[in-house]
């Protein structure tokens, strides 16, 4: 008698045992959240308050006092928003800031001619009707190098950016205008993907996040004939980030707009919670490696300029008032050199040593350079969090006074306008910074080990290859420790 068994399903990439030690379906556990997310008005409901806030920030920046700590744009953006973003939203929520970011809103509206609804139709590559020229972004710029250099450029003027209201206004106004202009010329959220400096570092550090949006069953995506996640449908816009959910395996370029959740005809996309820094180990290009380097060096540079006792660096950075051009030149050149050449060079040296010491002849330097660079990601994120701790603990009291007098006009909306500058437990700051840096070191070493296990399955080779990069990580940690606690 003939026997016929069920055919084997095509398997996708198997999960390794160390990945997703726990992982649960957030939408499955809280169906109400899924219902909310599927509502057309969900994203707009999140964006509108932020739009109002940033609009008000622009007003305060233009018409309020030029004194930074008495102007809402400086205090709320560079103290409150920054700390909430780097220490809360990103590690816990991936790119959830992008879900509610007001900066590309004008561009989206111009491109979609809708704030809530979705338009069916045909536009290049999509099943939606978009407006504008819908040009393709140049292939040569389809990476994050622009974001790398953009962020580095902005960081050079960080002393002005985070203390002068008008400079912050200029930055955000420029971003809104550029995003709107690009939306009229190019397809989808080209600004967010390739130009926005905030998006640049969000893409990198989202890899560590405890949230991920993924397809539930990859086989369903394989069979799906509409590919509505990326092409859109009458239920949702085409993915503004140009991401294909069927194969998405990391958080970097998913902006959590949840359009795919609305448009997927198979209800096959869900939000998952997972442990911190235990997935998404893959660095795909040199642009991402340099992003990791730039962010780590800038965490160091910001700490030196804004927090250290060496006032000379602050003076060099404060070009608008001190006019020390030679100092500013030294500071700018030094920062760029460190971020673009010196640190990547050190990292390259560590990789060459790792390859030599482990006799890993089957693996190219390029492959190891790319793969092992993940180790810079948790370290960088936690270094930024460590930098941000004194921001909120020492300067957080400005929030209390500014909320009552946002423009420095003499208002006292909530009776706290004269709340004095009151550092909160400043003696705790060094201990917290040390703790955070050590957490960063742990996750970086852990990630390095995981990545090395995939690149070099042989345990002896793997262990030897870990020594030079681990030594580099330890060196980075010691430098930050020296900076923060002396």
């Amino acid at each position, binding site marked *: *008698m*003939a*026997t*016929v*068994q069920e*055919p*084997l*399903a*095509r398997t996708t990439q198997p999960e390794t045992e160390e990945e997703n030690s726990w992982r649960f379906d957030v939408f499955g556990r809280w169906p109400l959240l899924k219902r909310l997310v599927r509502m057309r008005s969900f994203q707009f409901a999140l964006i509108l308050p932020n739009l109002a806030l940033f609009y008000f920030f622009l007003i305060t920046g233009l018409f309020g006092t030029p004194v930074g700590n008495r102007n809402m744009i400086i205090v709320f953006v560079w103290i409150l928003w920054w700390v909430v973003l780097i220490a809360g939203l990103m590690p816990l929520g991936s790119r959830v800031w992008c879900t509610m970011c007001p900066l590309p809103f004008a561009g989206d509206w111009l491109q979609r001619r809708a704030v809530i609804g979705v338009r069916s139709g045909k536009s*290049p*590559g999509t099943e939606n009707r978009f407006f504008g020229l*819908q040009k*393709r*972004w140049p*292939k040569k710029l*389809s*990476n994050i190098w622009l974001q790398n250099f953009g962020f580095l450029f902005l960081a050079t003027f960080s002393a002005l950016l985070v203390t002068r209201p008008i400079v912050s206004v200029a930055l955000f106004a420029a971003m809104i205008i550029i995003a709107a202009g690009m939306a009229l010329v190019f*397809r989808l959220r080209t600004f967010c*993907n390739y130009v926005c400096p905030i998006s640049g570092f969000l893409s990198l550090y989202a890899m560590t996040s405890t949230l991920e949006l993924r397809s539930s069953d990859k*086989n369903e*995506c*394989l*069979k*799906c*004939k*509409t*590919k509505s996640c*990326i*092409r859109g449908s009458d239920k949702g816009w085409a993915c503004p*980030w*140009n*991401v*294909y*959910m*069927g*194969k*998405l*395996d*990391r958080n*970097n*370029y998913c902006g959590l707009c949840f359009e795919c959740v609305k448009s997927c005809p198979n209800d096959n996309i869900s939000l998952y919670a997972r442990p911190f820094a235990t997935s998404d180990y893959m660095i*795909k*290009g040199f642009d991402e490696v340099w992003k990791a380097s730039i962010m780590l060096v800038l965490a160091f540079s910001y700490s030196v300029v804004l927090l250290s006792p060496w006032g000379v660096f602050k003076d060099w950075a404060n070009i608008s008032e001190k006019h020390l051009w030679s100092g500013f030149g030294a500071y700018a050149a030094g920062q760029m050199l460190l971020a673009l050449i010196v640190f990547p060079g050190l990292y390259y040296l560590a990789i060459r040593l790792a390859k030599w010491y482990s006799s890993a002849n089957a693996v190219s330097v390029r492959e190891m350079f790319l793969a092992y660079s993940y180790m810079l990601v948790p370290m960088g994120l936690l270094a930024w969090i460590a930098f941000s701790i004194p921001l909120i603990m020492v300067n957080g009291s400005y929030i209390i006074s500014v909320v009552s007098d946002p423009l420095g006009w003499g208002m006292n909306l909530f009776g706290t306008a004269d709340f004095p500058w009151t550092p909160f437990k400043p003696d705790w700051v060094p201990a917290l910074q040390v703790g955070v840096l050590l957490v960063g070191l742990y996750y970086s070493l852990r990630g390095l080990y995981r990545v090395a296990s995939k690149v070099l399955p042989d345990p002896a080779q793997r262990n030897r290859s870990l020594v030079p990069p681990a030594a580099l990580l330890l060196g980075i940690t010691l430098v930050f420790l020296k900076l923060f606690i002396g």
Partner: protein
Amino acid sequence: MTDFQPDVLRTTLLRAIQIERRNSELYESLASIFDDYDDSVKAMFIEMAEEERQHGTDLKQRYRARFGPVPLLIADPKEVIEAPDLPDGEALVFDSMTPEKALQAGLQAEEDARHFYSVEVTRTSDPELQQLYRELGEFEETHVRMLQDKLAQATHKTNEASR
């Protein structure tokens, strides 16, 4: 041989036809993603969609020769055998799709199908079913070879152009 054997053979061949039809639609869907974005990738996917349709036509001829008229196929197969896909989720973010990668996606799908049928040969004890799976496997083998040739030609062209 039992009475239900012809039915198993018939449904197996129908499933193979369904797969080819479904896959041609998948290729068309993939092609439309590259509409006005990358003409060469789109053209490659459209070409592969056309080939899948041709494969389906060939299989239908075999079906007619054996079992008579081909019934109207409404549902898609449950299996994901031979389903082509983009190489990664960020192919359009980094603009990394090329006609060669499109061919590789198709080749991967055909190799999966060939492998599938070769495994199915070992999983059944019925000689007629085994023979059918072997034929389907050879069918996919010709597609694999054809795509390998195309990929070699495309790669050669690219190398020539870059010199």
